């Protein structure tokens, strides 16, 4: 974990600028980040969630191949530790989550019913968006999941707005706004950073740096490729985190939540992660080698890593892992069956929900 150079620079700025209260406030350091020490139950929950996301996404890939899922479908395989670690730390119903189009994992980590997600992927009436949103556009007001946004980086100012609403309502909630290394180059991200820090909004900005914006690697697209430093000129503290280690992620989440809930304004977390699959299902992935992908799978896989550690710690034995695998496979198979068999929306649904009011 790397603590930002940001802090040292900000100190220099403070000396120049004198005693601005904003700058003095800035000098408060974020709490020390420690790798989370889970209980056995916690670690099992993390493992179960990561495995659910992995198996769900594998199944979605299969259904796509069978023509049951159409359009764009962006899989989260490889990045499971990020949402699992972060969302295990928030309070459902109080805090809010928003992300881009690679959103299935975020929804599962919001404890949304896998059936309603899979049925949305297959475009059925029982889908969480009644079949009208698809893979990229899903929401759950109940679970505090605010999408599922298809326009790269649009979710970043929206996330700042969710933070604004939490602050305005004084409900103690925090907004988690996820975006990718590609989205980090959009201008609106910095417009949102500026307002979020200016108004001390309770927002955790999470850059899921999976190394490739579609086919363009970070260092081919980013003049500053240490993305945790992207908040520096807005005085937003940044942390770089091993996004392949669920406990490192959870540790960063603990520190970030303490910081943000303490009224210090937003924080930026760069999660170094990796996606095993293509950008979307139609991506031939010619921009990286098979060996590169295989090497991450062999050495850094978040699920394998957690399993090894749980065995070492004696938090679970092989029998538990076997049972867990069976349980998850059953859940996912049921979701897939449901999604395949559920009826398509009635044609009358074409005209519903365009507007809420009747005029």
């Amino acid at each position, binding site marked *: 974990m790397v603590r930002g150079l940001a802090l040292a620079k900000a100190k220099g700025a403070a000396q120049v600028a004198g005693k601005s209260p904003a700058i003095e406030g800035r000098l408060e350091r974020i709490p020390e980040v420690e790798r989370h020490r889970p209980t056995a139950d916690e670690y099992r929950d993390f493992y179960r969630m990561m495995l659910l996301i992995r198996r769900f996404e594998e199944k979605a890939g299969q259904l796509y191949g069978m023509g049951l899922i159409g359009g764009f479908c962006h899989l989260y395989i490889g990045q499971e530790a990020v949402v699992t670690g972060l969302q295990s730390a928030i309070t459902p119903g109080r805090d*809010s989550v*928003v992300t881009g189009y690679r959103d299935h994992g975020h929804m599962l980590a919001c404890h949304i019913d896998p059936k309603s997600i899979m049925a949305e992927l297959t475009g059925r009436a029982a*889908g*969480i*968006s*009644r*079949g*009208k*949103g698809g893979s990229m*556009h*899903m*929401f*759950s*007001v109940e679970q505090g999941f*605010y*999408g*599922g*946004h*298809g*326009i790269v980086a*649009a979710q*970043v*100012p*929206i*996330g*700042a*707005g*969710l*933070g*604004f*609403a*939490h602050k*305005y*309502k004084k409900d103690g909630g925090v*907004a988690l706004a996820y975006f990718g290394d590609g989205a980090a180059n959009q*201008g*609106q991200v910095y*417009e*949102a950073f*500026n*307002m979020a820090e*200016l*108004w001390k909004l309770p927002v955790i900005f999470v850059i899921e740096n999976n190394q490739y914006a579609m086919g363009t690697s970070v260092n081919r697209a980013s003049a500053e490729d240490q993305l945790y430093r992207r908040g520096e000129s807005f005085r937003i503290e940044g942390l770089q985190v091993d996004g392949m280690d669920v406990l490192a992620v959870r540790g960063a989440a603990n520190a970030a939540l303490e910081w943000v809930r303490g009224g210090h304004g937003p924080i930026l977390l760069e999660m170094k992660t990796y996606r095993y699959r293509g950008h979307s299902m139609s991506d031939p992935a010619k921009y990286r080698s098979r060996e590169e992908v295989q090497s991450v799978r062999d050495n850094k896989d978040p699920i394998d890593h957690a399993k090894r550690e749980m065995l070492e710690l004696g938090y679970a034995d092989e029998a538990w892992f076997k049972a867990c695998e069976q349980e998850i496979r059953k859940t996912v198979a049921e979701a897939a069956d449901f999604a395949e068999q559920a009826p398509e929306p009635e044609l009358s649904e074409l005209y*519903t*929900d*365009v*507007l*809420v*009011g009747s*005029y």
Partner: protein
Amino acid sequence: MHVKLPAMSPTMEEGTLATWLVKPGDAVKPGQVIAEIETDKATMELESDEAGTVLSLDVAAGTDGVKVGTVIAVIAVEGEEASSGTVAPRAGTEVPSETGVAPQVKADAPVPQAAAPAQAAAFDGPTRKQTVREALRDAMAEEMRADGAVFVMGEEVAQYQGAYKVTQGLLEEFGDARVVDTPITEYGFAGLGVGAAMGGLKPIVEFMTFNFAMQAIDHIINSAAKTNYMSGGQMRCPIVFRGPNGAASRVAAQHSQNYAPWYASVPGLVVLSPYDAADAKGLLKSAIRSPDPVVFLENELLYGHSFEVPEGEHVVPIGKARLYREGTDVTLVSYSIGVGIALEAAKLLEADGVSAEVLDLRSLRPLDEGAVLASLKKTNRMVVVEEGWPVCSIASEIIAIAMEKGFDDLDAPVLRVTNKDVPLPYANNLEKAALVKAADVVAAVKSII
């Protein structure tokens, strides 16, 4: 030198001579403040830019409604025969110009002319005269008093009291948590507003002009308009995007576009564009209460115009056109500032024995097709008046409706009278030539009668 009341903003037509700071016989120096002028937006200081002696003050302090260009004082300028010098207005604490730069206007500069407002139709209860600007402010203030989730954000809405003074007084009443000055960051604050709306608030997002909302149109359309549908009806976005739209005066092409046709083409949006103060108030209140995202298109030239507004609670339903003037020979369909032009044309036509009906659409999405068709059925002739481009316009849409659904009622082709199909030019004569005017409407009507 004759000191004439200068235009202190691109759209100022008259002002109040609040105070004289000099008297006849006084020597004045360049840069000396000689008077305070109140416009409907702010109090401005008037400076002399010549050295000389005040010969006479020709308009008494406290005089209202002094037209721009009126001689208000005469100064004997040193070393010069009496000639037409210039007087530059100096900004006081509040600058009405949208750019924040005090306009350096020649005293004899041409005065921008907006369409003359016609008297609105009568209301049942008691009314009072209000400017469109005040009516909009009252609508926001009333809704903010009624609902703690309503807040206003935008550039200069709070401490500056609004670039066009529409939010005047709101900061004092509601505080800075609910009247929020934003950085100049349209894309960002439009998106932030959408997020706040999804998070349960009811934001009113002011754009200094809708020309700047082009930077934010992605959030208006992709994030606000489409989300309810894409979420199967669970993710609401009750937000109002409001601000001036269309041509102002001499601000050229980038500041002069009418976006009504753009937004009105988008399912998932409500698009409103009132003409008079009563509708401005009543429709803005409906917009704020609406559970849907609303694009509320105002007009800078109308802000200072006064109309009768019903006292007390006044709410105008969304989706209903207003028959502004009854007639029998032809229907003039319009919205926003175009209604004033249509009313002016109707008056001219009346003198020629043609009875024109004027229908103010005011709600562009949903559009009151029934009112359009009912009026067509009555007059059998229709001309659409629109301060905007002709191609793919609201006028085009009205023509399509008339043809598809009112074909049997048509005695003549429906014509559109709009701005010319060019970016709006700056030069005074070219701008005039490009903008829609009553004479064009009269000519169009005469060609089909």
